[in-house]
């Protein structure tokens, strides 16, 4: 059977070169960098320094500005809560409505403790209007957080414009580059970011490791208190193999990601065109041009998203959906099934938005994968529609 992974936005396979780089750090070079008085600790510490350099270079930062975390969720929480805890008087935060839950939900405890938040709307393509940021900034605004790229709909935000506005107004700018870093250029100077979130498992590195860029001089309180690690921003024994792996992934991305993007962008276009030609009542989501390469997202009328994914999986195609029904099969009750806030934000009608699909290609996908998906999806959609009472009604209506 085919085995086509079109869900790179949820995670990516670790590159074999990354695995090779990490391996010695488990059983041989297993020292704790804090024990740098002896050889094993010293080796670990030096690897840590080197890795910090690689990750810094990936985003145009200084090594001392990179703080390793357990992943993007921690980095986003640290950016928001850490900046808030470090703030004296400014108690207003601006975010977009399409941020990841690790940004949106990090605001909840802050609101409870008196912070005010402005949640910016996005347009039909999922983009924030930089002018809205300008208008939302108040004298007491501490931070603007707008993501670089959205995982679900692929839209890239005008982060440089937003960064410039924040800078002009003396407001911190955080951008969540989880979905973009390693795939499209991410540069903290070009973006004008003071805080920037990175996640290794989203660019062929391991899970359980991420980083936050903290511009020198930015006030940020630690969330994890304890030992002396990570310049005081983040206590805890460093995940040395993970950090080494993240650095290896960063090096690979720096060398190769332009090539990946050059190949994936036309593949994405091919998939887009093929879907458009073969499936009626299909609606693409996200910005048509300003989007992640190889990322194609859409919803179809009269076919439910989870069913689409299950049938695709039976054909060896693994993809994601923003549909409610597939969101959290491990929850405890129906309330845990939350429809995508992103789809609502871009105005997909809620009574039919359940048929959403996100295809996200990775560096190892090929034109044959696209062809396979195009060969199976129309039949899958038809099959589900044939089963659906709403399709029947629609056709009768069309028939006159």
């Amino acid at each position, binding site marked *: 059977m085919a085995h086509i992974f079109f869900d790179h936005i949820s995670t990516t396979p670790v590159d074999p070169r990354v695995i090779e780089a990490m391996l010695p750090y488990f059983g041989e070079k297993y020292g704790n960098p804090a024990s740098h008085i002896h050889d094993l600790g010293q080796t670990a510490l030096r690897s840590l320094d080197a890795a910090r350099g690689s990750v810094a270079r990936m985003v145009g930062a200084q090594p001392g500005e990179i703080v390793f975390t357990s992943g993007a969720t921690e980095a986003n929480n640290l950016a928001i809560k850490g900046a808030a805890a470090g703030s004296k008087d400014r108690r207003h935060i601006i975010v977009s409505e399409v941020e990841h839950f690790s940004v949106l939900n990090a605001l909840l405890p802050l609101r409870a403790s008196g912070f005010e938040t402005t949640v910016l709307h996005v347009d039909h393509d999922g983009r924030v209007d930089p002018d809205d940021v300008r208008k939302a900034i108040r004298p007491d605004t501490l931070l603007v957080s707008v993501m670089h790229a959205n995982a679900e709909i692929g839209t890239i935000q005008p982060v440089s414009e937003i960064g410039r506005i924040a800078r002009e107004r003396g407001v911190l700018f955080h951008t969540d580059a989880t979905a973009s870093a390693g795939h499209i250029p991410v540069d903290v100077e070009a973006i004008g970011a003071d805080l920037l979130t990175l996640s290794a498992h989203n660019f062929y590195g391991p899970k359980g490791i991420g980083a936050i860029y903290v511009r020198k001089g930015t006030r940020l309180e630690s969330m994890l208190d304890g030992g002396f690690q990570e310049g005081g921003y983040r206590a805890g024994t460093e995940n040395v193999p993970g950090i080494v792996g993240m650095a290896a992934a960063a090096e690979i991305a720096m060398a190769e990601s332009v090539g990946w993007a050059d190949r994936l962008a036309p593949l994405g276009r091919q998939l887009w065109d093929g879907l458009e030609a073969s499936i009626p009542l299909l609606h693409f989501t996200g910005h048509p041009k300003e989007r992640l390469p190889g990322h194609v997202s859409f919803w179809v009328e009269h076919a*439910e998203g989870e*069913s689409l994914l299950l049938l695709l999986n039976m054909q060896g195609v693994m993809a994601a959906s923003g*549909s409610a*029904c597939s969101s959290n*099969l*491990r*929850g405890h009750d129906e309330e845990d099934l939350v429809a995508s806030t992103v789809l609502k934000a871009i105005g997909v009608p809620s009574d039919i938005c359940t048929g959403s699909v996100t295809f996200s290609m990775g560096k190892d996908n090929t034109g044959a994968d696209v062809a396979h998906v195009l060969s199976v999806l129309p039949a899958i959609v038809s099959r589900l529609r044939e089963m659906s*009472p*709403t399709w029947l009604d629609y056709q009768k209506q069309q028939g006159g």
Partner: protein
Amino acid sequence: MAAGPYSEKVMEHFMNPRNVGEIENADGVGEVGNPACGDMMRLYVKVEAGKVSDAKFRTFGCGAAIASSSMLTEMIKGKTIDEARAITNTQVSDALGGLPEVKIHCSVMAEEAVKAALDDYSKKHPG
């Protein structure tokens, strides 16, 4: 078979649903659910001599919704009206080898669909 999030039985019914379609001039039709909630089921029944002689469905919904619909039609065929009415969502979900907690509502939808279809039958065939 692929490792799905559902039991093998659910996947089997989802992949090969029984009794999909509609019954022309059905004796009862029940429609429950709402696409806005992610699923909607329309159940057609034929009643002969006080028994459900045929049942067909169309469902918009997730794997559990389609499998529950399919299983339900199998379960009610040949049953008396009272027996069919007495079918509970737990029986449907048990017959499917269990459903994830968050998907119990799909079996509830199936239970409600029978009742709706039989209510419709009663209304059309009073007395």
